[in-house]
């Protein structure tokens, strides 16, 4: 598993993908947090990081598929899957190695935003007047959400040999999972089933962790969706012929 992880991660670093993703994410979120008047913390006047945690997932909906789109699609197109599958590796080694590399890149992208937290702590009146448990919970939620998006992206990449198709599918599924199900649940036809559909979506659980409430049900949800997507990927990949 480790050689695949290393190869994938150095692949990101050598192909500029990593720098692009980090730069675009931080620029976008930085503008939203500190510059654009509608969403800026400075205009808003409250010492919280809601902008990052509410807009961040939407930026990730586009960036994570860009990270993961080539993982299997490119290998299929170039035929290098044959190289990997004739080496002493299990299917899981390959799937998990690729997933972890993408996930690590997402986590690294999120890390610099910790600076925002420090800034807001200093800007608070009195200094330090920030809902720290809420921020920690939100970060955990965001990282978990990154994991779900990565697994969706890897799965989308495993079902096609066209990277553009992989990107579009992944972005679409991420969107549906994140807020699509939530919006659907409010349709009157679902009636009392609405809550169930809402709970299938990411937003319901993400909002719950954002309150600083660490509920094992939310964590179980994130881990199961990620795991399930990886299982689908593994099944798809093992039928590589």
């Amino acid at each position, binding site marked *: 598993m480790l050689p695949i992880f290393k190869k994938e991660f150095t692949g990101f670093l050598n*192909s500029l993908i990593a720098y692009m993703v980090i730069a675009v994410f931080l620029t976008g979120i930085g503008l939203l947090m500190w510059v654009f008047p509608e969403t800026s913390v400075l205009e808003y006047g409250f010492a919280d990081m809601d902008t990052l945690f509410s807009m961040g997932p939407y930026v990730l909906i586009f960036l994570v598929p860009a990270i993961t789109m080539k993982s299997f699609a490119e290998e299929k197109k170039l035929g290098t899957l044959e190289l990997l*599958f004739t*080496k*002493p590796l299990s299917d899981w080694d390959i799937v998990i190695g690729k997933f972890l590399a993408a996930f690590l890149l997402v986590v690294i992208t999120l890390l610099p935003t910790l600076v925002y937290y420090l800034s807001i702590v200093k800007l608070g009146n009195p200094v330090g007047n920030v809902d720290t448990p809420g921020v920690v919970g939100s970060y955990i939620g965001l990282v978990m959400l990154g994991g779900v998006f990565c697994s969706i992206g890897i799965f989308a990449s495993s079902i096609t040999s066209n990277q553009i198709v992989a990107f579009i599918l992944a972005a679409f599924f991420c969107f549906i999972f994140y807020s699509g199900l939530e919006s659907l649940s409010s349709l009157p036809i679902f009636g009392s089933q609405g809550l169930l559909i809402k709970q299938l979506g990411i937003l319901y659980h993400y909002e719950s962790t954002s309150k600083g409430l660490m509920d094992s049900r939310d964590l179980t949800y994130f881990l199961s969706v990620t795991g399930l997507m990886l299982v689908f990927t593994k099944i798809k990949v093992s039928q590589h*012929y």
Partner: protein
Amino acid sequence: MSLEINHLTKVYGKQIALNAISFSVQDGEIVGFLGPNGAGKSTTMKISTGFLPSTSGDVKVGDFLVSERPLQVKRIVGYLAEHNPLYLDMYVHEHLRFVGGLYGLSGSRLKHRVGEMIELCGLTHEQNKKIETLSKGYRQRVGLAQALIHDPKVLILDEPTSGLDPNQIVEIRKLIKEISVNKTVVFSTHIMQEVQAICDRVIVINKGEIVADDKLVNLLQIENKSTGIEVEFETSIEMEELRSLPFVKEVVLLGRNKFRLIGEGGIDIRPEIFKFSSERKISLLGLKKEEVSLESVFRELTHAPSPDA
């Protein structure tokens, strides 16, 4: 380590790619696997390396069945796939280190093996280049180097020389010969000369069936029986007349007054033809025995496979 293929069958949809083929390659043997495109060579190799599952039948490498212990088999097999898939954006030494890592090599052992392979495959000057910048011949060397990095006991090479220029072909053949010491090697090709240059046993496959499994020398003798002669007369002569000669089995018109004759029972009929022309007072312009060409053996075996061949 030996390689045994037992009643291997592969069906794609309705198409039968391999029809219960069986053969075995002994420890240390080098075997050429020959056949036209689409005969099932690559399919056999892909199943032997664990990339494809078989429909029925199995492959045994050493003591392990591919279907039961794929990881063990993959550890002892080195494989160069037909289109030589490589990560083009990697450097040569980086690629070799990556593949070595997949076989569990690390540290100084890995470094040592990578250095050895670079030297063996003649990549010393190319090791710091990206694979995408290399010519096809050098990419093929990288492909061989990665197949050899873990010192495999069994080496499976799928058309190692296809698409190379004549100089590169000679170099790669030489390389294969060098590295095949103490290894069991199966390589596929559709060029007969290649078999002659590298090894002496050949397995010919056509439309998913084995049509010959023998030493090359023996195959050439099979063909000998239908070797013809080419004859050219100065003036015109009826084909029927030639056909009526007792020692002639078959006549084919090749050109103006030029014929290809096959003698009865595979005997050399040149003396008879000479006698015939002098009796008829027709000048002979040419009389030549056909060379036993490897191509004709190949065509013979793969175009009209007879069941007992």
